[in-house]
């Protein structure tokens, strides 16, 4: 049970990596990259978790009651938003690659070939 969160994070990383390596389409590859990235969310939130603790927001329960780690939550929060915009940047790259070469298959695209 105590190993489960770390193994889930590792499994997400491996599944995403398998998808990236075997991908035949850039949009699929970018999706796999997002899966790899979500392993960091699982890892960070698991590190900050604490049994019997509430959210780190002292609105309904007074300050001093046990709460989970707010530092890793802040990291995940900014990571998600920045990750979404980076995904958009990668999709824009894929779009331009498709315009230039007419394909989105990494196998068919030879970067150094003119």
């Amino acid at each position: 049970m105590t190993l489960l969160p770390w193994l889930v994070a590792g499994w997400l990383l491996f599944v995403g990596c398998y998808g990236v390596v075997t991908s035949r389409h850039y949009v699929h590859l970018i999706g796999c990259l997002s899966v790899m990235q979500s392993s960091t969310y699982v890892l960070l939130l698991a590190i900050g978790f604490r049994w019997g603790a509430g959210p780190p927001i002292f609105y309904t329960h007074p300050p001093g009651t046990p709460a989970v780690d707010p530092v890793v939550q802040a990291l995940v929060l900014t990571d998600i938003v920045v990750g979404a915009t980076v995904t958009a940047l990668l999709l824009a790259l894929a779009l331009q690659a498709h315009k230039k070469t007419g394909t989105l298959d990494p196998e068919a695209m030879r970067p150094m070939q003119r």
Partner: protein
Amino acid sequence: MTHRLRLAGLVVSLAILACALFRIALSMPQFGRHPFPYGQAINRLAPAQRHVSNMVSAVTFDYRGFDTLGEEFMLVGAVSGAAILLRGFRGEQPTARPVQIPGRPVPPPSDAVMLIARLIGPLMMLFGLDVVLHATVTPGGGFQGGAVIASGTLLLWIGEGYRGWRSIVRTWWLDVVEGGGALGFALSGLIPLCFGGGFMENMLPYGKFRDMLSGGLMQIENASVALAVAAGFVLLFLEFLEETRAPEDDQQ
């Protein structure tokens, strides 16, 4: 490199990585029972020091505000990169004309879709504003609220169609808000220096605990993050939707 060779390489390298990861997982502190001194210190001190009840916002905008400045510029960099890549091929001239493919008429959105989009779109943006404004009190903040506001504008696109959406959303205006948000965050770090404080030192009055306006400087940083995130996402939607135009529309 053949497909099979690459797969074999992947299996070997993942197997090595799996052994290392399993070894690390075994020596990790026990899940849910270990101390986290930094987070505990913030949970203990921030309500008294900064008069805020949302500890995540206190970390994002105050205690680790300098890190958020870097993330803010990463966001601006990614959005400008995507915009430059997409604009580079079709020029900067925007048109509000939707694409017409010959022989395929564009049906107007159905009444049901338009009704739902008109009802939910503004409500969603209002909810996003609520999430932004209560950043220091309840769960939420500029990052989340900005994304919600931007998603609300996409609902307007679904309801009103491209032409109606483009008459609401204007590019130059988005560019200004996107850059202005990042500038606001940087200035909220630099201006305290002019008054003898440290970088991003919270010198404004902190307000009352559990009040919407608590947190001092955090309010300004939160508002600029919300502006940058909302404008950045709308700008991305706009640039990708512009891509659907036919090439002959471009004014080279």
